[in-house]
C-alpha cells in the first residue's frame, strides 16, 4: 500500500459527497482564480505603462528653458527662452554621453487638404528627433538635412492626421497640405506610435523642418529656441551621465555662479518610467496578497469539512484499523483527500482566473498577460494549502483508538 493507492479511495470518498466537495473546493477555486486574474490585471497595467514609455522614446532627456519672473510672478517653465541654438550645438559636440539632440518647436494649426481640414499640432524639428524617439517613417521618406538648410516646404504626418485628411487606406505621400495658405508636400507617413502615458495621441501631429517652422510658420529666426530639446543618451546607463554633462555644460555656457539656480530644466523620462513601473509592481503585489488571503480562507474551509468528514467516518476508520490499516495509512488517506480537493480547486481556479482575466483585459483594452510562473505557483500553493489544512484532521483520524472508533455511533 503506497500513497498513490489511496488516490482512488480518496476520489471515491469525495465523489460520494459531490455537492459538499464542490462547495468546499469553491473557496480554493475563488482564491486561485483571484490570484491569477489579479496578477494578470497588474501585469496588464504594467505592460501598458511600459508600452507608453517605450513609445515616448528610450534613454530620453528633455531640456527646457527656464521661467520668466517679473515682480515675483513666475511664467512657468519654458516661458523665457534661455536655450540658444549654440547651446544645442554645444550639447551635440561636447557631451560624450549624448547620442543625438533635436529641437522641437510646436504650435497648433489648421491643416487643409483638398476638401478636408484638421486642426493639429505642428512640430518643427530635425530628422534626429525621430531617431531619438524611435519613430520610423512607415511610407514615403523622412525630410533630410538639405530640406532643413533649404527651408523646404515638406512634412511628415502622423497616422491620425493621414486618416482624417485623406481617409484611411489612401496613400498621402506626394499630396499637398496647406498650412496658413502655404502648400506643403507630404513626404512621409510616420509609423503608428499610440498614446502617451497621459493618453495624448502621438499620431495626431505633423512635423516639418525647424527652419521652415521658423521662417514660414512662427517666430522668425532667433538666437533662442522657442521650444524644447530632445536628447537621446547613448544607453540607459548613460542617461544620468548625459544629464549631469548637459547640466554642467549649460551652467558653464549660461555663466551661472555656484548657488544660482539653473535657468533651464532637464527631465529624465527613464526615471519617471521606473517610478511608474515600481508603482504598478506594488499594485500587482497588493492585489496578489489580497487574493492569497482568500486562498487561505479556502484552506480553512477544507480543514473544516475534513474535520466533519473524520467525525462522520469514525467507524470506517475503526474498520480500516481493525483489518490492518496502520496510522500512517489513515493519515495518508485523509491527507490525500484534502490535497485532492485543494489541487482540483487550484486547477479549476486557474481556468476560471484566465477566463476572468481575459474578459477584464478585453473590457479594459489591456493586453492579457498570464504569467506561467504564477499559474504553477498558484497550483503548488493550493496543494500546499491542502497539506497544511488537511494535516490536522488527518492526524486526528490516524490517532483514533480502534476500539472507540469501532464503537462510535
Amino acid at each position, binding site marked *: *500500500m503506497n500513497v498513490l*493507492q489511496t488516490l482512488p479511495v480518496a476520489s471515491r470518498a469525495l465523489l*460520494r459527497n459531490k455537492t459538499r466537495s464542490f462547495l468546499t473546493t469553491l473557496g480554493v477555486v475563488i482564491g486561485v482564480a483571484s490570484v491569477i486574474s489579479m496578477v494578470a490585471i497588474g501585469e496588464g497595467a504594467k505592460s501598458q505603462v511600459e508600452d507608453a514609455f517605450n513609445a515616448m522614446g528610450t534613454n530620453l532627456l528633455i531640456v527646457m528653458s527656464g521661467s520668466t519672473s517679473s515682480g515675483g510672478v513666475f511664467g512657468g517653465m519654458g516661458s523665457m527662452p534661455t536655450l540658444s541654438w549654440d547651446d544645442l550645438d554645444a550639447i551635440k559636440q561636447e557631451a560624450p554621453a549624448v547620442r543625438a539632440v533635436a529641437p522641437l518647436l510646436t504650435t497648433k494649426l489648421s491643416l487643409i487638404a483638398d476638401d478636408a481640414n484638421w486642426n493639429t499640432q505642428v512640430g518643427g524639428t530635425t530628422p534626429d528627433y525621430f531617431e531619438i524617439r524611435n519613430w520610423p517613417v512607415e511610407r514615403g521618406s523622412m525630410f533630410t538635412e538639405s530640406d532643413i538648410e533649404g527651408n523646404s516646404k515638406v512634412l511628415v504626418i502622423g497616422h491620425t492626421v493621414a486618416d482624417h485628411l485623406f481617409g484611411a487606406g489612401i496613400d498621402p505621400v506626394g499630396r499637398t497640405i496647406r498650412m496658413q495658405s502655404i502648400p506643403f508636400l507630404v513626404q512621409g507617413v510616420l509609423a503608428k506610435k499610440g498614446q502617451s502615458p497621459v493618453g495624448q495621441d502621438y499620431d495626431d501631429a505633423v512635423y516639418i523642418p525647424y527652419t521652415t517652422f521658423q521662417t514660414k510658420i512662427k517666430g522668425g529666426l532667433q538666437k533662442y529656441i522657442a521650444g524644447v530639446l530632445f536628447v537621446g543618451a547613448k544607453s540607459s546607463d548613460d542617461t544620468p551621465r548625459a544629464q549631469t554633462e548637459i547640466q554642467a555644460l549649460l551652467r558653464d555656457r549660461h555663466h551661472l555662479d555656484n548657488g544660482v539656480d539653473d535657468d533651464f530644466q532637464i527631465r529624465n523620462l527613464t526615471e519617471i518610467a521606473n517610478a511608474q513601473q515600481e508603482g504598478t509592481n506594488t499594485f500587482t503585489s497588493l492585489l496578489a496578497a489580497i487574493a492569497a488571503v482568500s486562498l487561505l480562507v479556502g484552506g480553512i474551509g477544507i480543514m473544516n469539512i475534513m474535520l466533519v468528514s473524520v467525525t462522520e467516518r469514525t*467507524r*470506517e476508520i*475503526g*474498520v*480500516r*484499523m*481493525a*483489518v*490492518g*490499516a*496502520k*496510522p*500512517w*495509512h489513515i493519515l495518508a488517506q485523509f491527507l490525500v483527500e484534502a490535497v485532492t480537493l485543494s489541487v482540483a480547486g487550484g486547477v479549476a481556479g486557474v481556468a476560471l482566473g484566465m477566463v476572468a482575466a481575459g474578459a477584464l483585459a478585453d473590457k479594459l483594452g489591456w493586453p492579457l498577460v498570464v504569467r506561467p510562473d504564477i499559474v504553477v505557483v498558484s497550483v503548488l500553493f493550493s496543494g500546499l494549502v491542502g497539506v497544511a489544512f488537511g494535516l490536522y484532521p488527518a492526524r486526528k483520524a490516524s490517532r483514533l483508538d*480502534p*476500539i472507540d472508533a*469501532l464503537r462510535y455511533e
Partner: protein
Amino acid sequence: MLIELEDVTKIYTLGDQVLRALDGVTFGVERGEFVAIMGSSGSGKSTLMNVIGCLDKPSSGSYVLSGRDVSKLDRGELAEVRNEVIGFVFQSFNLLTRTSALENVELPLVYAGVPRHDRIERARAALERVGLGERLHHHPSQLSGGQQQRVAIARAMVNSPQMILADEPTGNLDSRTSDDVMALFQALWSSGLTIVAVTHEPDIAEYASRVIQVKDGKILSDQRQTPRRAEPAA
C-alpha cells in the same frame, strides 16, 4: 499453541476509581480449537476480546500470539499483526457503506500490499466460499443481515489468517440466519481455522468445542464439550 495469555490484567482508571476489567487471566488456545468466551455484560469479555484481537494492550502480563510476544508492540506493529494473523467478525458487521461486497472483502489485502489483480481474485474466491458469488457488486444496503455478516466473514478470512475472532457474530441476526452463520463458522473450523467467538448467548456457545466463562475479569470455568452441529438451511 496459538494463544498464550499469562496473568493478563487490564486496569482502567476513571478519576480515583480503579476498574480491573481483566484480573489475572491465564489460558491458552491450541490451533484448530473453536472457543466460545461467555459472560454477561461487564464481565470483562469484551476487554478480553480486544486484548486477544490486538486492538488493546494489557496493563500487565504477557500475551504470546502465534509464538510472538505482542503485549509490547506499538500501534503500527499491532495493525500488522491484526492484518496477518487475525480476521474480525463484528456484531454490527462493520462493512463500509456504499462500497461493494468485493471491495469490502478486498480491504485487508489492500493494507497487506497485495497487487490489485490478486486482490480481486482472492476476494472473489472468499465471497464464493461464503455463498455470495452472485452478489460481488452489491452494496451492504442491498444485502440482508445474514448476507452482510457473510461478507464480513469473507473479509475476515480473505487474508488467510490463523484465527477468526468473532464478537457476538449473531447478535443482530434472527435465529434461522444465526444457524446459517454458525454453520459457516463450523465449516471454516473443520477446514482447520481457529475460531474464538465472544457471546452471551448459551445457544451460540453450544456450537463451540470449548467454553470459557468470564466473570468480574476472571475466568470462572473452562470446559471442553462436544459441539452441536449447525444445520444450514437448504
